[in-house]
């Protein structure tokens, strides 16, 4: 691939992100403006923004790469990433919006009336965010290394610099527009090359005689345990992601939070058809990428390999642009929500504190990313989902639906889930390829363990059920305004 293609694509996406960010900032300047603007953000914009923030390196590069490696087993990843939003809709969307909480620590503090719960939740959220940023930076390193020939670390550092500049300068405060734009950019960047390739192959008549999709690695198919554990992680991990939950605040009320989630489901369903198609095409026509250890780069390399020439270069540029949109949008969404938590809880909530916190939020995972090697992107993000499902998910679900939850129970459950799942992740990275399957996919036992501890300890400390529980539960579950406009 022509090395300048990757660089140009990266620069164009970064500049576009900054420009849209600043343009959006100008029209929403004060707190009042921001609230008014956020109340009038139509569900379509809001849903596009959620999609833009959610579709990370794992979705854009990792899913196709994993499908190339392990075939239909990997199809559970896009299914789980999407179905996670169904769970979010069923159990969290409307009550969380009605709680009025802006961050997860805000919610747990209001629900359980406890500063300690707030602090523990904040720590968990920051860990989740950092763990989630690392694979984005790995993806950026991979993309820069493969498309430009520069040293791979340049990619990670460049993403962190762009994110820090836009967040610190204030551009990312008008995040809705940027994120919505990036959803459509990512969709275009995957869809156009796939359709072009399909038509080109159909034109040469090769799809009629396409060889059967092969298994390029000879990996054994995953057992039912791995698939089920993965689904537990993805289904329950989605409803605790800090950067996703923040976005629900921009819905005017609980009912529109539900409608927004429905649109998000539609947008994700359309999006994930394309990485799946990429994976199938790659398995059929470019299985050698899996053997050379470049599976995650499948999406980047396929257009050049199958089309070639100027058209191949243009399609490659589009894909690289989409990939950077994925790294930038997810990383900046996470950095903004982490900076909110860190500055509020540690630095006293000033604007200076927010800027400092933003830099801390981005630089710490950069250190991790530079010190570690990239695993399969979809796999490492899958582990982050397992961690979220073992910590944030139980406290949210029980907090919303069970009056008996106490602050002691919440803390005990989060700590248990965090230690079990975190321990499994550390053990897995130490043991490497020899990790037993139940340790490599911990969600199937760490999530039930966290729930169990949370319920048992809450039962044992019944006296600590907050006195505000009736008022809070009423607020969470009753509709906001007369439903005369509803059918």
């Amino acid at each position: 691939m022509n090395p300048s293609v990757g660089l140009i694509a990266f620069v164009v996406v970064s500049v576009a992100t900054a420009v849209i960010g600043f343009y959006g900032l100008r029209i929403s300047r004060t707190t009042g403006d921001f609230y008014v603007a956020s109340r009038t953000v139509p569900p379509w914009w809001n849903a596009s923004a959620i999609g833009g923030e959610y579709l990370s390196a794992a979705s854009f590069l990792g899913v196709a790469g994993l499908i190339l490696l392990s075939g239909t087993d990997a199809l559970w990843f896009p299914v789980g990433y999407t179905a996670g939003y169904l769970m979010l809709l069923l159990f969290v969307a409307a009550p969380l919006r009605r709680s009025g909480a802006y961050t997860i620590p805000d919610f747990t503090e209001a629900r359980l009336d406890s500063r300690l719960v707030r602090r523990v939740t904040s720590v968990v959220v920051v860990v989740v965010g950092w763990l989630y940023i690392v694979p984005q930076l790995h993806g950026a390193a991979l993309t820069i290394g493969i498309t430009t020939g520069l040293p791979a670390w340049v990619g990670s550092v460049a993403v962190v610099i762009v994110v820090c500049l836009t967040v610190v300068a204030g551009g990312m405060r008008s995040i809705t527009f940027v994120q919505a734009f990036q959803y459509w950019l990512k969709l275009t960047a995957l869809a156009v090359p796939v359709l072009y390739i399909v038509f080109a192959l159909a034109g040469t008549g090769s799809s009629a005689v396409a060889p059967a999709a092969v298994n390029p690695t000879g990996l054994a198919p995953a057992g039912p345990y791995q698939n089920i554990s993965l689904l537990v992680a993805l289904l329950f991990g989605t409803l605790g992601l800090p950067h996703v939950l923040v976005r629900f605040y921009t819905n005017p009320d609980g009912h529109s939070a539900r409608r927004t989630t429905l649109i998000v489901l539609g947008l994700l369903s359309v999006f994930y058809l394309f990485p799946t198609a990429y994976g199938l095409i790659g398995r059929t026509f470019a299985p050698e990428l899996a053997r050379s250890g470049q599976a995650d780069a499948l999406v980047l390399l396929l257009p050049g390999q199958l089309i070639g020439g100027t058209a191949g270069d243009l399609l490659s540029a589009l894909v690289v642009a989409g990939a950077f949109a994925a790294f930038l949008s997810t990383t900046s969404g996470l950095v903004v929500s982490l900076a909110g938590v860190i500055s509020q809880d540690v630095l006293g909530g000033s604007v200076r504190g927010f800027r400092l916190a933003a830099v801390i939020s981005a630089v710490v995972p950069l250190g991790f990313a530079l010190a570690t090697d990239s695993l399969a992107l979809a796999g490492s993000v899958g582990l982050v989902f397992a961690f979220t499902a073992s910590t944030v998910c139980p406290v949210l679900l029980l907090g919303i639906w069970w009056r008996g939850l106490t602050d002691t129970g919440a803390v005990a459950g989060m700590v248990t889930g965090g230690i079990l799942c975190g321990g499994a992740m550390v053990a897995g990275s130490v043991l490497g390829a020899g990790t037993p399957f139940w340790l490599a996919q911990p969600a199937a036992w760490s999530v039930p363990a966290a729930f169990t501890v949370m319920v048992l300890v809450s039962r044992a400390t019944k006296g600590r059920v907050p006195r505000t529980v009736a008022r809070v539960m009423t607020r969470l579950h009753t509709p906001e305004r007369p439903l005369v406009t509803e059918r």
Partner: protein
Amino acid sequence: MTRVRVTAPLSAARPATASREAAEESEVGQLFVRSLIRTQLRLALVVAGGFLLVLGAFPLLLAAVPGLAGTRVAGIPFDWLLLGAGIYPVTGISAWLYIRSAARNEARYRDLAEDK
């Protein structure tokens, strides 16, 4: 350029409506709220359970009917079509059904809470 922090006004996200205040204070109001929560939870569990049953049925179907996985529809193997595209309509339909029923439950709660 002034920068502002945007956080949630925790206690006053929006003015509580008259019916909300009544629901928070009176015993009858709390009865209605408890019943609404139970209904919504049951609805969510039923939809989630139904969805997971369909999700589990897909691989079982492929395992139970030999040769089905390799059948090609328009050049695409059937197992890829089923898992790669067929599940998304199921999530969409589940979500749509849930939203309708959840809104209906809330309307019924409002009728009760305001009639008393």
